[in-house]
């Protein structure tokens, strides 16, 4: 897997890899709430969220539709402003963190610009952030390779399948090498096989680079396989139901899915989800 070797060269060397403890949290939420005022009355999308995410963690948010997973990610990204409580990203407000370009965001939909080719879509953040042309080309090539889209540089988005478009959007978020990745169901539209493959690649990338990942998913096995911690959320109002530690070795492989430890954690997550659902009126 040559692309991983390259990834190693351009990011934090493994010996300097941050450990999951003893460092200031990347994300710290205290009593965080967000209420949307709608025509039909207030919607409590987030309510009393307390969460610390430390450098190098891989945290999955899992929960039924409408429980506020996207909203929480958007608050971290300063795309939405909390109506109560406090939150810091890299020790500063989400607004300041956004201005420092601290995170890469993968949306639930690919959100590629239809008038740009795949290569130019991946280059978009690099253009905005003022990377040189040579640097842009090198990064576009490397990241398209990483998501298995080599050869599609000059295609327009409509010429790619939905899954390929989503992979292009992942390459775009990785292209400027942010330390924090916010991913909203990035693999929701992919088939099982490609999903497994990308899960392994994402895990390897995370292991090698020491990035912090906040990852939204609906899939229990995906959450258990990828995460160091799983945040189970429940709806109305959107809140944290349970936080389940998930300490498999960082260089885990897909085989761990057959182990008893994996199955136990998956069961705990499933149990938590079911309990969360029982609150629903």
């Amino acid at each position, binding site marked *: 897997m040559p692309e991983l070797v390259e990834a190693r060269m351009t990011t934090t060397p493994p010996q300097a890899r941050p450990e999951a403890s003893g460092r200031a949290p990347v994300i710290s939420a205290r009593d965080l709430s967000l209420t949307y005022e709608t025509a039909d009355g207030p919607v409590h999308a987030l309510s009393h969220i307390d969460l610390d995410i430390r450098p190098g963690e891989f945290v999955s948010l899992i929960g039924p539709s409408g429980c506020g997973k996207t909203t929480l990610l958007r608050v971290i*990204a*300063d795309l939405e402003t909390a109506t109560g409580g406090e939150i810091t990203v890299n020790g500063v407000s989400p607004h300041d963190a956004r201005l420092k370009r601290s995170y890469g965001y993968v949306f639930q939909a690919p*959100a590629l*610009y239809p008038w740009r080719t795949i290569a130019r879509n991946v280059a978009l953040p690099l253009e*905005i952030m003022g990377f040189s042309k040579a640097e842009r080309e090198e990064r576009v090539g490397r990241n398209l390779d990483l998501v298995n889209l080599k050869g599609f540089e000059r295609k327009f988005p*409509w010429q790619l399948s939905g899954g390929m478009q989503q992979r292009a959007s992942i390459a775009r978020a990785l292209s400027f090498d942010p330390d924090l990745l916010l991913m909203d169901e990035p693999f929701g539209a992919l088939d099982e096989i490609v999903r497994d493959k990308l899960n392994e690649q994402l895990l390897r990338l995370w292991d090698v680079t020491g990035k912090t990942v906040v990852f939204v998913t609906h899939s229990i096995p995906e959450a258990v396989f990828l995460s160091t911690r799983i945040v189970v959320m429940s709806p109305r109002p959107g809140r944290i139901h349970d936080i389940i530690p998930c300490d498999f070795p960082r260089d885990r492989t897909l085989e761990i899915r057959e182990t008893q430890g994996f199955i136990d954690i998956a069961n705990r997550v499933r149990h938590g989800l079911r309990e969360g659902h029982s609150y629903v009126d």
Partner: protein
Amino acid sequence: MSTEAASLPRAAAPPRPGVWAGLWEGHALPVVVVSLLIVALWYVGAVAMNADLQRSAFENAGQKTWTTAELVAGTLAQERPRLPAPHQVAEELWKTVVDTAPTSKRSLVYHAGITLSATVLGFLFGSVLGILLAVLIVHVRSLERSLMPWIVASQTIPIVALAPMIVIILNQLDVTGVVPKAAIAAYLSFFPVTVGMVKGLRSPDPLQLDLMRTYSASRLQTFLALRVPSSVPFLFASLKVGVAAALVGTVVAELTQSADGGFGARLLAGSYYGQTVQIWAALFAAALCACLLIAVVAFADRIVLRRMGYTR
């Protein structure tokens, strides 16, 4: 790692039918049928409208009786008919376009040149003005409420009333020649461009805008990398309307500023001397020029949109 690129089957291009066969199957048949119907109706109308003129012509010439065939033939060959027959207009067009030197004042090519130069100049000015206004309106909230009512009001004033005033005022300021006519053309063509561009610059969806926000892109960067490319299809749609409006504006201005020539001057001279055939020929020539201008814009539209990956 990139086996997928190589092994993914590319959709084979469907076999292309011959250009003419395609045209015939696609659009040509209905177009021909409708055109023939219009020509036929036109002939019926010409006979009906010119019949009593023809009867009095026979009477004045001392002819007491005439056959229907004579009457019909007569209605289609008058020198100053109420409604000229299609072949009379075609003959006049042939005479004034092909048989007359383009430098002559009797040539429609000569007049087309005058009208087109003012139209194109006015269209360019109007489009630039329209785009600038749209950019201002999209970026300065308060301008939408303060500017837009005036822009809309400007288009509610009948141009036939406004054009002579503008031309006369400009003439008194020693602005003559192509500029007053181009000003009227610009006056009519900026409006659709402004409306279309405001819509186009606002067309990015929230997700596309959020993406720019995550990069903490500046307003200028968002404008250049997102709003401008999103607006291009809207721009071309409104340019097509704008270029036709510019031609109308020029012709109306030429009615006032008729000494310089142009289709408007031909229309005026034709109605002054009762030369209906000349009026209709000028009308047709003007319509053909409008079609030509729209075709040029449509061609640019296709090229640009294809290069931007909008068309499949």
